[in-house]
């Protein structure tokens, strides 16, 4: 089938590029000067394409790679600090402070608030330090348990059993105007110190 395929240009030299009349129309012999001009035009076009492509690549790569940038987190309120009784660990939810308009319910975020004593807290991410599944608090055995691979943590967030390589991730917290605030943003992850 390859013999049917023709070069796209009508004036194509015969195979081998010998100085012979053009096979298609028998026009005059091609000259070295013509070849040089065609070669130059091709290279010129390639440079144009390269420049245009480089400029076009900026927005393409820019949007694709933008999420790799580390995004800032922000302080968000979990409501009145009084809602978290001393000695207990309670469930709390907040809207991610760095949410986007299209996030829907996915912007909702959950965490566990442990009030050690009034004014002293630990706020844990729900995400298991193993593979991110949501851990649940069991007040009776004072353990967090993960439904995915059976990771378990003590009430201070330290690893108790199972595959997690470390304790639960914690959010920085502060009390502001009677409200418990945490600094939250991206998914908690390994960049956090133990």
């Amino acid at each position, binding site marked *: *089938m390859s013999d*049917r395929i023709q070069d796209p240009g009508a004036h194509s030299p015969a195979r081998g590029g010998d100085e012979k009349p053009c096979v298609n129309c028998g026009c005059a012999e091609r000259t070295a000067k013509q070849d040089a001009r065609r070669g130059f035009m091709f290279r010129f076009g390639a440079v144009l394409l390269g420049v245009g492509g480089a400029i076009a690549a900026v927005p393409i790569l820019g949007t*694709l*790679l933008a*999420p*790799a*940038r*580390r*995004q800032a987190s922000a302080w968000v309120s979990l409501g009145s600090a009084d809602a978290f009784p001393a000695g207990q660990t309670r*469930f709390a*939810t907040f809207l*991610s402070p*760095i*949410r*986007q*308009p*299209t*996030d*829907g*319910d*996915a*912007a*909702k*975020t*959950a965490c566990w608030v442990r009030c050690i004593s009034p004014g002293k807290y630990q706020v844990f991410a*729900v*995400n298991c330090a*193993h*593979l*991110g*599944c*949501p*851990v*649940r608090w*069991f007040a*009776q*055995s*004072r*353990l967090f*348990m*993960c*439904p*995915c*691979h*059976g990771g*378990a943590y*003590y*009430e201070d967030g330290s690893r*108790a*059993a*199972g*595959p*997690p*390589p470390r304790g639960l991730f914690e959010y920085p917290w502060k009390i502001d105007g009677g409200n418990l605030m945490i600094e939250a*943003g*991206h*998914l908690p*992850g*390994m*960049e956090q110190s133990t």
Partner: protein
Amino acid sequence: MKPPRVVGMAIDWVEARTGAVAFLAPLLTHHVPRNAKWWYVFGSATLMFFTIQLVTGVCLATLYAPSAAEAWESLRYIDEEVPFGWMLRALHGWSSNAMVVMMAIHMLQVFLHASYKFPRELNWVTGVFLLFTVLALAFTGQVMRWDQDAYWGLGIGASIADRIPVIGNQVRGLLLGGPIIGGETLSRFFALHVFVLPGAALGLIGLHLALIMKNGISEMPKVGATVEPATYRAEYEQRMEKDGVPFYPDAAQRDMVFCGACLVLLVVLAAVYGPFGPGGQPDPTLIDTNPRPDYPFLWIFGAVSLLPPASETAVMLVAPLVGVLALVAVPFFANAGERAPSRRPGMVLIASLAVMAVAALTWEGKTSPWSPVMNAWSALPTPEHFLAGRTPLEVQGANVFQFAQCRNCHSLDGLGGERGPALDAIATRMTPDQLMRQIQQGDGNMPAFGRNLDSAQMTALVSFLSTLRPEFEAPAVIPGAQLPLPVQRMPGEVVTPVAVGSQ
């Protein structure tokens, strides 16, 4: 039944302008080995399921709203309101699983028959790329469901990416399209699922088929019929010329029958078992959930729970790379010589081990014995025969057993968690002292309860556990201690262990 003249004219007209017949005729008439029989139908069936995926996928794309705020609702709408919508989703879901299975069988057959040897190395390599493309389609398809499994499945993917040293955080950001699992995550996976990956699959399939046409279908392996790269091609073409049969109708009939049967089975499965999901709504604050991946990934889910924590990160990150490289390297590592499985016991062993490992890990992933049964403590009653005739303290101990969520990891009468051992006969294995120490201090796989239970709870619990033994079996003793006389326990009698070191 001679076709009317006008049909012939029409064909000629099109042929003169497209060359379609000249292009297609060799596809139908090329010679294939006579002895292939039913061995070679699996690739065709995979292609058939892929076609189903394209058609149903395009239809679903006309109904699906790829927005994190609306995707889940739109699936419910397709399932419940759109005429035949649920059937469309069921076909897409079942066909996806069927394609993965058929592909695995096809690959296994090629591996066992060593069809990847010269000159078909690149057939195999494109096949390996197709395998990963299809698995990526399956994973991104699971994300399209945008339910709780999809959300937490992404969380698992993100956590694995996050473990990459130095650039983990950036890779995770690229994967999720942002710092959280949200709208841009779904959009990103939608683009992958409906544009990038199907495009890649189409290209690879084209290449795979072109290579098949170029290199011909491999023959059934025969002991002694070795592959010699220097002479193979000429000899193969000679044999086909002499002994081959035309693809149509000799081989095509089997492909046709097998694909037809597969399609009927697919329709039945879809009609009887319906679509997959969507599961619970994708609200990450609804944590009363038990995330599990789709079937093709259950074995990975199982594997990551069995890895020791120390080597886990390394294995999770390196194993996939090693797996891809090993698969790609197969034909370059052994591209000549014997093809018969009986002469390649090592390869047969590797294939069998791989199949068994994936099957076993899938089963483990499905049953997840390592996962606590989250509501066992409040939902599974203490079996009555473990309560009758017990003292008030022992009954309170049974209460502590439920209260302290022991049941989430330990079963009684076969009900409860399987993370820890079943405790039906624990008193035959452990003395009260040993039980006390185990509960207080725990060990690698059991949390220490020393700080979480007070001594009254602990005493009651141990006294209950000490009653857990079959009626005529002796309680545990410290090794080396004097064996107790057989005791028949009266109802209400407190089991007193043999005093250690006394006498």
